[in-house]
């Protein structure tokens, strides 16, 4: 067996209440690596034939929590949540930092595959003794903080009861959903550690659709053996040395960007992206750090970047709220995009969103979309039961709950921005799409393209197989294959990154594969992306994307910026079209972005050809 893998996957059928171990052959592992890549392959093999008939929230969909060979061994261990996305109707590799990932490997599993639907709420416990389905009715409905508190105690108690003599048991690593996921808010997140989320793709809703509240893992084994342990130990030190030298990023994380992305690069969402510039120093890092950061260096397993910081509000009306910094994405989406320019209010909104298990980018995107419809008179006070004005943290708090519980207009907004725009448009006879900021249903991360000053440009989202996902954007169809496509499949944190050569040396030392940067840019990466492209084009059953037309930025991204130093600039449509064409050509897709027969054969994806043939007509 290649190094870095625990060697088996836990296959759970919740409908039949069956748990078994599954082994995936070495060839498949080498071709798809792990996480995002392997997830796309598994879901294609298992439900590909009836892809367009299965909704992401059907019991037949498979929820997957996958590690990769790098997880835990390379700095910054993450878990990749995947399956058929109920948002993009394709597949998204959605990752979150959590001890759940290394714990799973130390318990002897590379991943958990969950199909079916439990008759009542359950959680899955994975230990060295295997997997176990357990009752979760007592934690169903509980917010994040409560869920962690109860599960940590309960799991430790039962492990202690089982093996009382080996010493004190530690807490398990856990991924879970909040009320949003339980109620199948389509873009809900899979959560961990109160504020870490696998947000893109709506996999929290997938867990909810299966009555699956959480998966906890506790292993007493070592991390899996590797191909060249001495080399790995050296590289481990080397990558950490690099991380440790990044003083400014370690100190600030992304928590200082709440001001600078607006003020410097004019690419921060403000009031549902009506603007992307602001100069509100009240959203600057020091306003968070000096008032609210109670732990200034917080890290996940095997990470020395510690870009995370913990915030707590100790007095005033939001007393007791705990969250991370918040990071830049939530400073934007739970702050400026709500018209909120106050650090305390932003922390409060982040805590609410995280506790409810909304995805911190996607849920608030829908909320701001609703607020703009209210601003324009398309939605009214009676739709919500309250007024929703920009900057009103109390109103946005109520809205977060309304959506999580699917009450009133919240029931429609719980379908995510794109689907809600369609429904409300039909209801009110007004086109709401100009206000829906998404690509292929995936609400866009907090980096605009109009100023062209940020790292996101013309086709970053438009051509991406993961739509609005800011963590995995499209660039040239070549270099990006060793970026997020690789890290999401090896499953480690992008922020623990190192020069590509060093990462590949590390990966080779772990796995023993004959792999190279070149082989990933020419074969493995394109194989994963092409399969993901095929799946998102197949789509269905409720939504099917039209090639080219839907491979585009949202209308708002073509409006001129209304304010700031880059006023008047907007995304260059001609550039989008030409770069998109080049992107498709590079990957061996036809002019509409449908993978050609030759490309599919070259990438060993011949079995995808029949379904692509139909699309080409």
């Amino acid at each position, binding site marked *: 067996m290649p190094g870095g893998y625990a060697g088996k996957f836990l296959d759970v059928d919740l409908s039949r209440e069956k748990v078994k171990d599954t082994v995936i052959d070495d060839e498949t592992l080498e071709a798809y690596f792990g996480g995002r890549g392997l997830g796309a392959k598994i879901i294609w093999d298992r439900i590909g034939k009836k892809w367009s008939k299965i909704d992401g929230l059907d019991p037949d969909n498979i929820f997957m929590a996958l590690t990769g060979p790098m997880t835990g061994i390379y700095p910054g261990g993450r878990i990749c949540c995947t399956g058929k996305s109920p948002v993009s109707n394709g597949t998204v590799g959605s990752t979150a930092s959590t001890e759940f990932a290394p714990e799973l490997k130390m318990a002897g599993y590379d991943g958990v595959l969950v199909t079916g639907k439990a008759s009542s709420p359950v959680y899955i416990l994975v230990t060295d003794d295997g997997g176990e389905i357990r009752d979760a009715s007592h934690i169903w409905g509980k917010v994040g903080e409560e869920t962690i508190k109860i599960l940590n105690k309960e799991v430790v108690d039962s492990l202690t009861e089982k093996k009382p003599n080996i010493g004190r048991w530690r807490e398990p690593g856990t991924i879970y959903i909040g009320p949003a996921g339980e109620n199948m808010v389509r873009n809900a997140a899979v959560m961990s550690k109160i504020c870490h989320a696998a947000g893109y793709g709506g996999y929290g809703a997938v867990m909810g659709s299966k009555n699956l509240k959480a998966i906890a893992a506790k292993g007493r084994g070592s991390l899996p053996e590797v191909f060249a342990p001495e080399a790995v130990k050296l590289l481990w030190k080397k990558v950490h040395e690099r991380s440790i030298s990044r003083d400014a990023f370690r100190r600030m994380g992304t928590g200082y960007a709440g001001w600078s992305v607006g003020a410097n690069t004019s690419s921060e969402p403000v009031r549902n992206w009506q603007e992307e510039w602001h100069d509100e120093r009240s959203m600057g890092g020091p306003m968070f750090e000096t008032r609210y950061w109670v732990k200034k260096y*917080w890290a996940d397993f095997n990470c020395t970047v510690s870009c995370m910081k*913990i915030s707590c509000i100790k007095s005033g009306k939001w007393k007791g709220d705990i969250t991370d910094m918040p990071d830049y994405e939530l400073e934007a989406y739970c702050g400026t995009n709500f018209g909120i320019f106050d650090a305390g209010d932003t922390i409060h909104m982040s805590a609410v969103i995280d506790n409810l298990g909304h995805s911190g980018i996607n849920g608030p995107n829908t909320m701001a979309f609703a607020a703009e419809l209210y601003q324009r008179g398309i939605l009214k006070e009676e739709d919500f039961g309250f007024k929703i004005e920009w900057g009103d943290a109390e109103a946005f708090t109520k809205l977060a709950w309304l959506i999580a519980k699917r009450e009133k207009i919240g029931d429609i907004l719980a379908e995510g921005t794109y689907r809600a725009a369609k429904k409300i448009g039909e209801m009110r006879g007004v086109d709401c799409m100009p206000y829906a900021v998404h690509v292929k249903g995936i609400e866009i991360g907090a980096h605009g393209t109009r100023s062209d000053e940020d790292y996101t440009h013309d086709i970053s989202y438009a051509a991406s197989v993961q739509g609005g996902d800011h963590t995995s954007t499209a660039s040239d169809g070549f270099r990006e294959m060793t970026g997020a496509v690789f890290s999401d499949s090896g499953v480690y944190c992008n922020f623990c990154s190192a020069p590509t050569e060093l990462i590949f040396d590390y990966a080779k030392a772990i796995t023993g594969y004959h792999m190279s940067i070149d082989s990933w840019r020419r074969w493995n990466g394109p194989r994963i992306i092409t399969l993901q492209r095929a799946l998102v084009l197949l789509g269905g059953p409720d939504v099917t994307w039209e090639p080219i037309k839907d491979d585009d930025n949202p209308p708002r991204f073509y409006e001129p910026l209304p304010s700031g130093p880059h006023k008047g600039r907007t995304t260059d449509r001609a550039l989008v079209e030409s770069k998109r064409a080049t992107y498709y050509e590079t990957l061996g897709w036809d002019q509409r972005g449908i993978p050609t027969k030759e490309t599919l054969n070259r990438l060993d994806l011949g079995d995808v050809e029949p379904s692509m043939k139909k699309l080409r007509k």
Partner: protein
Amino acid sequence: MATRTDEYKNSGDKMSDPIWIVRDYERCTGCQRCELACSIHHDGWMWPEASRVRVFMPFPGVEVPHLCAQCDDYPCVESCPVDALSVDEKTTAVIVDREACTSCGLCIKACPGDVPTLHPGDNKANICDLCDGDPECVKVCHEAKYDALRLVHESMSKNRKLFARDPIDVAKDIAVKLFGEKGEEVI
């Protein structure tokens, strides 16, 4: 050179360089690199549950590095029915004779802080041996500029035993310090 507790107590000036690991809980980020370094040193590979220092995390943000406090009266050493535990003269660390250990677990019960474990590999008593005076956990923690674990050259003191506490009790205190009144509810 390891001797039994009473010999150690009578050793007087033979105690050349007693060291101790200070734990500054609030500085711990929860990265668990101390565990990785410990297990790489003792077991040859990354194995957090085999580590002699383990970070408890009963609530996010509340991280408690948990390791031997080297109590002045060494209740674990005293409790061992087969004399498998002894005190290192030089460092004052508890040394386990893995051949002699019968995995009875009495040392775990004797420890006021619930610190020792049975090693997940050989099932023998697993206690911090201070890496013979140069602890790996301290090195990686310092390298990362966290210094949640620091080495001090400090002679035996009754105070050490005050650190031999249940990790969850410690966590409850830290939670209040970090989160104020809210901290009383989270664990």
